[in-house]
């Protein structure tokens, strides 16, 4: 019953390694979108404009309350009806990036709110502009407490990339499926995918903790 074939495993490994590259690119690009757009969402909720704050907050709540897979389908299949025709890769990056941007915006918000009120007041006393307050005083102090959360979502986005297989992005699961149905063998490809995910996720968590300590030291906190 347990007939693991090493020969087959070695044979499919190159394809899986290649797909790992795609998975990492998807996770990385999605994360970059999430990090940048998430910060914009967080800052938009702190503007004096109530309409903007309300709209952004509702948008974040909407995205967080609906499944990622639905958002992927929406961008890819419904987008063209509105004239937005994107490749599977583009659709996937945008959907996953937006999805995680909403989660990250909450992490940033927590980080920004953790900066003591006195820091804002000191920035006012130095007559800083709003942009200077954020760039020079608030964000450098909001990042370290946000790093743990940001790291969790980096691992999260990595583990969610298989969702992109549903629109045909050739990441790990998609490739393992293809290998499985070509050879009528699923044990080796799926097991290998599991090991690859584990081999990347586990050290990543440790590295993120090290990075957090490094940033804190660097900022003298």
């Amino acid at each position: 019953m347990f007939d693991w074939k090493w020969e087959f495993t070695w044979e499919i490994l190159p394809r899986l390694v290649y797909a790992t590259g795609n998975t990492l690119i998807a996770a990385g690009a999605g994360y970059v979108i999430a990090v940048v757009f998430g910060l914009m969402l967080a800052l938009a909720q702190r503007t004096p404009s109530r309409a903007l704050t309300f709209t952004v907050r509702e948008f974040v709540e909407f995205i967080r309350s609906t499944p990622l897979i639905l958002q992927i389908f929406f961008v890819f299949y419904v987008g063209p009806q509105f004239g937005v025709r994107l490749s599977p890769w583009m659709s996937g990056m945008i959907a996953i990036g937006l999805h995680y941007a909403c989660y990250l915006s909450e992490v940033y918000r927590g980080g920004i709110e953790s900066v003591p009120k006195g820091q804002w007041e000191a920035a006012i006393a130095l007559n800083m502009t709003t942009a200077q307050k954020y760039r020079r005083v608030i964000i450098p102090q909001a990042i370290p407490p946000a790093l743990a959360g940001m790291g969790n979502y980096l691992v999260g986005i990595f583990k969610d990339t298989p969702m992109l297989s549903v629109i045909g992005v050739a990441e790990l699961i998609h490739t393992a499926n293809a290998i499985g149905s070509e050879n009528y063998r699923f044990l080796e490809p799926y097991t290998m995918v599991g090991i690859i995910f584990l081999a990347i996720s586990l050290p990543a968590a440790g590295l993120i903790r090290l990075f957090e300590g490094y940033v804190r030291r660097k900022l003298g906190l």
Partner: protein
Amino acid sequence: MLDKTGFPLEMTGEDTPMVSFRKVNKSYGALTVLDDLDLDVAAGEMVSIIGPSGSGKTTVLRMLMTLERINGGVIYVDGKPLTHMPKGGHLVPANERHLRSRRADIGMCFQHFNLFPHMTALENCMEGPVQVLGLSKAEARDRSEELLEMVGMISKKDQHPSRLSGGQQQRVAIARALAMRPKVMLFDEVTSALDPEVIGEVTNVIRKLVSEHNLTMLMVTHQMGFARDISDRVCFFYGGRIEEQGPPAELFGNPQRERTQQFLSAVREAV
């Protein structure tokens, strides 16, 4: 020229005060913190504000630093309205741009120092001059090092605040505020968070400022002896207004109002 509500658009003349509160009101909901406050501070004058907690003394400084908005009245700095701006011959509440242009005259030190923890002592002092005033790094460094020298912190200039004692942090905070070259300096209970043995190092810096610089200063303090020593005038706040004010020798030596007498004797008993 007067605004329709009777406030001058600008104060001119030789004896224009550096700071002028005109009928300033501040309340939080139903709680009145400042009640029609009138207070003038002359250029170069050192005014101490004392009074029981909740009497509005810290609020005076916070509104002058524009950390909070006032509900009524006008505050002038160097003759020009701070909280308001002229528009069509009237004073209207100031926008952020006006506040930024007028706030440059004012510097403030806080009870809890509020140094930027991610910057060294020197970087804290250089931050405003470089970012806000647009000085070159070299100029800002010279200016900051000179001030750190003055407050006796030059040897610790490369330390982050977390490595400094409270007294040291407060001295850096004073240097940081002075690096902006304000005309008015505000000290908000700057020794209240300090251990007793380091209070002296901060008060000595303030003494030095008083004797060597022609700054206008407002200081909220609980240290009656210090206020008595260095102030030109002491204001006793009670219930959001000035209950009594005068030269320190008179206010401390011969208080006229009953509330002042009660407060001062309560403070003396506590020591």
